[in-house]
């Protein structure tokens, strides 16, 4: 079993797992989109190794695998940035939710002690 086959198997299962996670609603589509893109890219490169060769030559990268690393690294950075954006959004929503719960509770206490 050569490394291309192993990579292809891994990439395909990666895509499969992503789709399965969406199907079971463990992963929302908006976040899954990035994962799927990554999976499809990985599959393409492992099934057609010449693609990588061709691409690196086209943009003057002399050692083809380094292009793979560069793309992987960029993708990871992109994903982390995306996640921190999502966290910030969640944080804002959570803050408002906590505030609303506290205000509701205070309102209820006021009504109980009132008339």
């Amino acid at each position, binding site marked *: 079993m050569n490394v291309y086959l192993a990579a292809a198997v891994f990439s395909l299962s990666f895509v499969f797992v992503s789709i399965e996670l969406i199907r079971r609603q463990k992963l929302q589509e908006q976040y899954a989109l990035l994962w799927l893109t990554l999976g499809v890219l990985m599959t393409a490169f492992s099934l057609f190794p010449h693609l990588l060769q061709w691409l690196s030559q086209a943009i003057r990268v002399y050692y083809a695998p380094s292009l793979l690393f560069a793309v992987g690294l960029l993708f990871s950075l992109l994903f982390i940035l995306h996640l921190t954006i999502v966290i910030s959004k969640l*944080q*804002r929503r959570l*803050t408002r939710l*906590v*505030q609303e*719960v*506290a*205000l509701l*509770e*205070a309102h209820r206490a006021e009504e109980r002690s009132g008339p």
Partner: protein
Amino acid sequence: MKLLVIIPAYNEAASIAAVIADVRAALPEADIAVVNDGSADATAAVARAAGPDAVIDLPVNLGIGGAVQTGYLYAARGGYELAVQIDADGQHDPRELAHILQPLCEGRADCCIGSRFLQRTGYRAPWNRRLGIWFFTWMIRWMTGKRFTDPTSGFRAVNRPIIELFARDYPEDYPEVEAIMLLERRGLRVCEASVVMRGRQAGRSSITPLKSLYYMLKVTLALCITRFRDVSAVR
């Protein structure tokens, strides 16, 4: 004028009752809302016993920004025309409330900040604190052209338009300096009034050296961003 005094409190069981009593004595006609920011001690129970108009219990700790904003939300929905925020540690003397309310009552300002440094009041902050305050004074002056002698002071009064603004949009943590910039950017009139502050009556400051560094960096960044943010954009 319907006035709400907002007291954000985090683990201030030792001083909160005295602060509530002092506010009551200084401004009998004002409503008092204590925002208990998920304290681990008996702050909520002690505050309730002191009999403010509302004790708002945050189920988790949000930090000072989120807690103060809860007070402004309460003020916005309760139809209050003026709101004052005052620390629960006893550092701010409620007898000084009249001084920071005066410019608002006279319609001279939209927000008035109680400053320790506007006139010589005998208050001496530690040198590192003074350095930080001096830095932000300089920065706000550089960005807005206006001089605020005590930009980190959390002792401030605001009118109805600002209550509504803060209910929508208020910085999360270390909000004081950033809030000034937010108001200045929207063309609201912010002024200072000289107040005498006491040392904290109980408890400890939440600021450690590492936190001060984070404080400086975070607030500096926030100031720069607020300066260049489109003012019509609501977060």
